[in-house]
């Protein structure tokens, strides 16, 4: 009896998690603009998306930022995790503290603090020379995304470092390997699954971010979530349904890749 109650309850929660998304995908194929009644199957909304040049440009911006930010954050975060685990250095406590603060602080707090930084830089640059242009856009968005992704890479990689055998590194050093050689040939291969997981996590965090991007992007540079945000605020449209459906399928693909990589690692 208890078992059936459990299964029923779990099914109910899964239904709660998936029902809205399923509805959204189903109605992206509905041949009607306003009504929620079923008016027949259509690819119309997907075709309309494919013709929307602005949307495609914005989506490409998002992918560019996502790939660059995830890659930079992965390099920075992996080096950072190795540094935090293996070395004692001045400011180590500060770095640990800041990683914690960045993970815990709400996105909005990070967004406005980065905006304050970038605007100040902009003002200072204008004072130095009028030709110096440091207005908000690609660079400020990229730097911000790297900043909010890096702590997650550090945490992911650190949890793996804690799990592996320290003797391997000692052995490499005893055999005369330099620190960099040890990192490249021993530490990095061992960390690889966490590094890849960190990259994927960063990429999705970057693709998903609305709040920080809205603060630091300026008027001329837009990413996909911001565009969706302004579309959604105007109301429900089948086009947004289609776009959301594509993004959901993309998420499924990324999760599948991540799972496959993790499985490979276990074997």
């Amino acid at each position, binding site marked *: 009896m208890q078992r059936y109650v459990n299964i029923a309850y*779990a099914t109910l929660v899964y239904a709660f998690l998936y029902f*809205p998304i399923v509805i959204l995908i189903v109605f992206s194929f509905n041949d009607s603009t306003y009504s*929620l009644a079923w008016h027949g199957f259509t690819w119309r909304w997907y075709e309309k998306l494919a013709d929307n040049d602005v949307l495609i440009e914005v989506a490409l911006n998002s992918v560019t930022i996502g790939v660059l930010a995830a890659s930079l954050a992965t390099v920075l975060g992996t*080096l950072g995790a*190795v540094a*935090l685990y293996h070395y004692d250095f001045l400011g180590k406590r500060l*770095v640990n503290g800041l990683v914690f603060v960045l993970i815990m602080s709400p996105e909005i707090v990070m967004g406005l603090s980065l905006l304050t930084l970038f605007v100040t830089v902009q003002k200072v640059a204008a004072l130095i020379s009028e030709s110096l242009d440091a207005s908000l856009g690609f660079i400020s968005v990229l730097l911000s995304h790297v900043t909010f992704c890096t702590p997650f890479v550090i945490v992911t990689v650190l949890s793996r470092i804690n799990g592996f055998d320290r003797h391997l590194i000692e052995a490499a050093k005893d055999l005369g390997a330099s*620190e960099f050689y040890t990192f490249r040939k021993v530490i990095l291969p061992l960390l690889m699954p966490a590094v890849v997981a960190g990259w994927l996590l960063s990429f999705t965090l970057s693709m998903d971010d609305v709040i920080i991007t809205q603060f630091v992007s300026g008027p001329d540079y837009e990413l996909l979530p911001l565009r969706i945000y302004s579309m959604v605020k105007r109301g429900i449209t089948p086009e947004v349904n289609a776009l*959301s459906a594509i*993004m959901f399928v993309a998420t499924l693909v990324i999760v599948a890749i991540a799972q496959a990589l993790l499985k490979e690692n276990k074997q």
Partner: protein
Amino acid sequence: MTRSRSNPFRRVATGSIFWWLFIFALIPNAMVVMVSFMPRGETEFVELGLTLESYGKLLDPLYLQVFWESFWLATLTTLLCLVIGYPFAYIIGRAPRHLRPLLVLLVIIPFWTSSLVRTYAMMILLGTQGVINTALIALGLITEPLELLFTPGAVVAGLVYTLLPFMVLPLYASIEKLDVRLIEAARDLGARKLTTFRKVIIPLTMPGIVAGCMLVFLPGLGMYYVSDILGGAKTTLIGNLIQRQFLSARDWPFGSALSVTLTLTMALMLWAYVVAARRAAQKVEA
């Protein structure tokens, strides 16, 4: 375990992370604290000077109301996530071992899906011509559509929906680690189900409960786009208020003061938790 301090690899590894966080985390936050004490400028965002004006504004009943409402909605969201999430995490954490990865994966997929997309999905469900209203009318349970969207209830529903995986995943992690023998021991000693749950299971899964609550409560205060989309103009959270100061009202000092207050309140809560946890640990030892 290191030998030479001047090793180039070591310098790059420690230097890059230190300076990045110094420039993009420490300095910006210090600047926000500074701005919160500066007067609002006429032409520029701020003027040089020192004032408590922005913090004075916080005492305005209008803004106190926003703080209160925001904390209340975030608390309600957290409690609902815990009540829904705990039994759920317990069931999947105790499911047959070979099924667990799949069950967790099914929680991770929404967790990785854009929260904006999921908020939008909620909008489709709750609208006047939304799925719920259409279904209820079709079933003859109501004649006029219920006003579900653009209410505080819609905001809570949206927050619970987007944040539930953040509660379930840490809970699952701590429940899965639970030693079954401890539960069996309690039962063998004659403890009733409820007593076992209260005295054994809850204390053992406390780290998961706390982590989950933090991961739900903190974003719950700041996710202004959820209240913006689902709450309409009626529901203003701290997040909406802060965002408005920076992106439309152009009152940076007040926005900064709000942000500093929010951060301090959260820090205070974390500290209270750490103190409480330490007390509890001492109690166990004694």
